[in-house]
């Protein structure tokens, strides 16, 4: 687990240090991509806790979600409809949902541990 957090910290550091800037008109796409990847990440964590984690689904979901979100945003820009709102809405709702499930799973795990400790 610590390795993953280290990866996150390393990613942020590299991103900040590398001083890469994308043109402001593409900033929207990147923010949506971040949202999509966060959604996939939490989905992955949930699946891991529910013992239904699958490597292929996780990795393909990551890239597919990002591409889909960026594609929707791109289409929206060209059609003059704010389609990226749909992506933000969908990912936002799922993010909350996933986090709620993760919280519940962790809580049940914790209470079970307490119970086990008490019985001992």
């Amino acid at each position, binding site marked *: 687990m610590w390795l993953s957090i280290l*990866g*996150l910290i390393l*990613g942020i550091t590299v*991103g900040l*240090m590398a001083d*890469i800037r994308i043109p402001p008109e593409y900033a929207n796409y990147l923010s949506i991509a971040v949202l999509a990847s966060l959604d996939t990440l939490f989905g992955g964590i949930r699946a*891991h806790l529910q013992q239904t984690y699958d490597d292929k689904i996780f*990795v393909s979901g*990551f890239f597919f979600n990002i591409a889909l979100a960026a594609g929707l945003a791109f289409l929206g820009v060209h059609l003059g409809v704010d389609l990226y709102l749909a992506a933000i809405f969908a990912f936002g709702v799922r993010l909350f949902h996933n986090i709620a499930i993760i919280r519940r799973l962790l809580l049940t795990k914790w209470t079970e541990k307490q119970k086990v400790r008490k019985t001992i």
Partner: protein
Amino acid sequence: MKKKTFSRFTIILFLIGLMVGIQYNTINEPESRESHDIWELRQELSREKQLHSELLSEISALDETLVKYDNASSASPEQALKDTVQELRISAGLTDMTGPGIEITIEPSPEAMAFGYEIEGISPDLLIRFVNEINRFKGLHVSIDGQRLVNNTAIRDINGAVTVNARPVSTPPFAIKIISPSTEDNQKLYNHLLGSRLIDDFFIDNLNVAVQEPSEKLTIEAFDEALPVDFLNASEGE
């Protein structure tokens, strides 16, 4: 198996971090980079210096008034106040002015007349451009076709007629009179007008700008209406 999972998570998290970092950089970019070269900086400096010296001269003029008040307070305070009022009336354009000046006649260009074009009035945009151009020179008193320009003069199109102070400007030819604070300023303005590209702009509208030789004594009329003052009230008492 677990190791593999965590390595996947690590890679994904690394990518997320990278994206967040880049996004942060992009959002926080706005401060524009200093790209002025030394000459632009020098020009900026000289502009600021000019502003500084203008402010200083304003301060010294106000100081002078203050000293005048101090001196006059014992002898005749009214006189000092009257002097100030007179100065203010002059700068507001409420008095006739006489001084070194230039008379400019805007007339239809000979080419347009030769072709038999219909003579149209000057456009308000062109007139505004002209006024802005001569306003590079400080302390001018200007009248357009007998209408004195004051601070709230409007030059605009009203029902197809170009108006200054809501009075229509006659179809060319008409005269613009400019009074400068000093003979040297007058000469400078004259030279500037002769070399100005503005005259070409007038020519596009089939108008010719005839700048007369600077004269030592030119008189322009006072602004003859009441200045509209909305928010200033006379104080009572004391």
